[in-house]
């Protein structure tokens, strides 16, 4: 039985450059993903009017218990200790995604300074009583020159 053995193709310079750029892009995206602040976000709908139950925690974006027509606000501080600006944006997922509003998104934090993002949830009339709306909020911080 005969086997065809093909000689190994050497990478051209342009291939090496493209591979290096792709690797750098991948490593950068990996770093940004790892460095992102990740929070579990949740809110429970309770019956009644004007009821707001607060669950104080700094581990999650817990908006507590809210009845229809009420709202809750949570703030997250972002520190930039780098000598570069940080481009910040938040991504929301899960059933709470459409309920959480941000006071700002897609913004820059100057070098060696801090800023705050305000997350608010308003419970609309169509929210299901006793349902827990949850999900995750990711705060991505991209160093910019």
């Amino acid at each position: 039985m005969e086997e065809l053995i093909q000689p190994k193709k050497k990478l051209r310079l342009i291939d090496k450059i493209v591979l290096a750029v792709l690797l750098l892009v991948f490593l950068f995206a990996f770093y940004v993903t790892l460095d992102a602040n990740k929070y579990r976000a949740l809110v429970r709908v309770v019956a009644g009017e004007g009821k707001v139950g607060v669950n104080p925690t700094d581990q999650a974006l817990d908006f507590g218990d809210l009845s229809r027509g009420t709202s809750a606000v949570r703030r997250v501080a972002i520190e930039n200790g780098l000598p570069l600006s940080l481009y910040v944006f938040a991504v929301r997922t899960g059933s709470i995604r459409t309920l959480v509003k941000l006071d700002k998104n897609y913004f820059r934090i100057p070098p060696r300074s801090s800023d705050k993002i305000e997350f608010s949830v308003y419970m609309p009339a169509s929210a299901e009583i006793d349902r827990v709306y949850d999900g995750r909020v990711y705060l991505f911080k991209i160093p910019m020159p």
Partner: protein
Amino acid sequence: MSRAARFILNLFVYLAIIGGLIFGLPRFLTWALETPYPMAAITSGSMWPVLNEGDLVFIQGGRKLEELKVGDIIVWRGTEDRGFTIHRVARINGSQIITKGDANFNEDQPIEFDQVVGRALTFRDRPVHIPHLGSITVLASNWKK
């Protein structure tokens, strides 16, 4: 056929397909759905959770007042060029229609039937919508403000 001629022919075919979709689809939808406004973007959360901000909904025109019923999602035009509103029919009083956003606590002001542009196209009693595709319109309207 030379490579250049084949490239130009392929490009021409692709452009024809894209052009056909961009210009032909709205015309086709206008004809098929019997309305000059076959699509609308959701610009607020008033119909949450059925329709979210940024969704694109399809509008069906050519309806008669007798065919409208409580629970239908309709599109109506404001009297003083207030733009379009997409809300659910809450009550019908003779020729007057009263709508309400699912997420709202209060009903809208009564409207006349001639203000109704159409009804949201439904499939199995749920409005046909494409999530996020209406975001471009939402961004443009926010930009104007």
